């Protein structure tokens, strides 16, 4: 009935309910079809003004056919809800991947801060928790092989988790209409073995570390989400723009004026509230312990390059 890959225990559980409802449906639908066919044949009108009995109602029968089919419905409701709750509560040791959805692309960010689009690598046999947010309209992360799906709403995190049994490749769809290229907003979940996964992660990290500094900075500017508050074209978002600030003297609401240089960038990343730009709020989170030295250098180089 549902010839889709069952990639997890959860998917098998959902399919059991699916089959239970299917059998229930087939059973009652057969009663309708057989009853209908039999009555149409048996009681077909044979002559004009044929007499029919005045059967108007039968309370016992009414009660029976109201109550009996209701019982399996209660089963469906409970079973369905219990199973659903399993998909809602992620195990504590889950690998957490942040998902950012935007028109019409996906971005998957790993605990080490690296982001990739359109392909999510996960290890087999380990629960994966997705913490998802949208940058524009409502999207929906749909992974049919795992029978999971959740809307991704702007300004709010929604989450999902799944755990695959074995390596494989699974299709991701956006299931909430989001504009012209909605049907092209696809991605893949690639399940690796634990070793393959670690290898892949290391290889990616190495690639990033070997990039030239400004290029790495540019990558980090997007991956670390600097871009959500700081523009590079002079427009004001939540924080000041990076455009042309290198070497400028800035005014602060809580400190003496200072020049934008490497040290200033470093301090702003690690202790953002030490110097708060006049006219802005102290809302930037600290990146203390979250950035390597080389990454801080890269960001400084990147800001320097924005003339």
């Amino acid at each position, binding site marked *: 009935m549902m010839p889709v890959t069952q990639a997890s225990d959860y998917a098998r559980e959902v399919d059991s309910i699916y089959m239970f409802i299917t059998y229930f449906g087939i059973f009652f639908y057969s009663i309708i079809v057989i009853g209908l066919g039999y009555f149409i044949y048996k009681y077909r009108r044979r002559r004009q003004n044929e007499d029919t009995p005045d059967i108007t109602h039968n309370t016992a029968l009414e009660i029976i056919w109201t109550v009996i089919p209701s019982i399996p419905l209660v089963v469906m409701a409970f079973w369905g809800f219990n199973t659903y709750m399993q998909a809602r509560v992620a195990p504590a040791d889950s690998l957490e991947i942040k998902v950012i959805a935007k028109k019409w692309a996906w971005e998957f960010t790993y605990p080490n801060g690296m982001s990739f689009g359109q392909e999510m690598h996960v290890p087999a046999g380990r629960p994966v928790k997705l913490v998802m947010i949208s940058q524009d309209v409502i999207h929906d992360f749909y992974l049919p092989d795992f029978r999971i799906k959740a809307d991704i709403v702007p300004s709010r995190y929604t989450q999902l988790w799944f755990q695959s049994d074995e390596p494989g490749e699974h299709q991701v769809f956006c299931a909430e209409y989001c504009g012209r290229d909605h049907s092209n907003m696809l991605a893949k979940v690639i399940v690796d073995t634990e070793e393959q996964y670690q290898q892949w992660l290391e290889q990616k990290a190495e690639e990033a570390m070997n990039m030239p500094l400004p290029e790495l900075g540019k990558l980090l500017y997007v991956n670390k989400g600097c871009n959500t508050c700081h523009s590079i074209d002079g427009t004001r978002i939540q924080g000041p723009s990076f455009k042309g600030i290198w070497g400028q003297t800035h*005014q602060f609401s809580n400190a003496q004026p200072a020049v934008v240089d490497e040290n200033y960038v470093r301090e702003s990343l690690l202790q953002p509230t030490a110097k708060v730009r006049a006219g802005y709020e102290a809302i930037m989170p600290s990146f203390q312990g979250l950035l390597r030295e080389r990454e801080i250098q890269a960001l400084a180089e990147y800001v320097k390059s924005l003339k």
Partner: protein
Amino acid sequence: MSVDNEAMETIPHHGEEVHTHNHTKWYVANILTLFVLTAITVLAAGVNFGSNTVNLMIAMAIATVKASLVALIFMHLLWERGMNAIIFLSSLFFVALFMSFTFFDLETRAKIEPSTPSEPGVSAGYQPAPLPIYVVPPKGSPEPTGGDPAKAAEGSPAH
């Protein structure tokens, strides 16, 4: 079976006068009560009953009493109970349904598992922006926190 009585009533008797009583006293008493209740509402607003929600609920309770008086006396529901009253009350039931279910959803969200990343910042790809003061910053108006010399430098590409 004879013709159903209730159905007969759908066509009222011709020429039957609708009994019209003089309710002026009721109306005067009602409007005075409403004035008093308005005063109470204003006074109650000056008192803090504990929390925002409690204050709101007290204000709504007084308003409900006032509205009920209007419905019962000005709108004559006190004297004509029947289909009209049922219609009116059923609307309130569905309003309550609409509000309570929606509120129930909004108040119980993220109770199973808080919908925030476990380590904020680790994967700080995107942080929901805090609420702005203005939807669109007003043109030509000074910044809310006063003058900012750096603003011009950063806003215009000339620098």
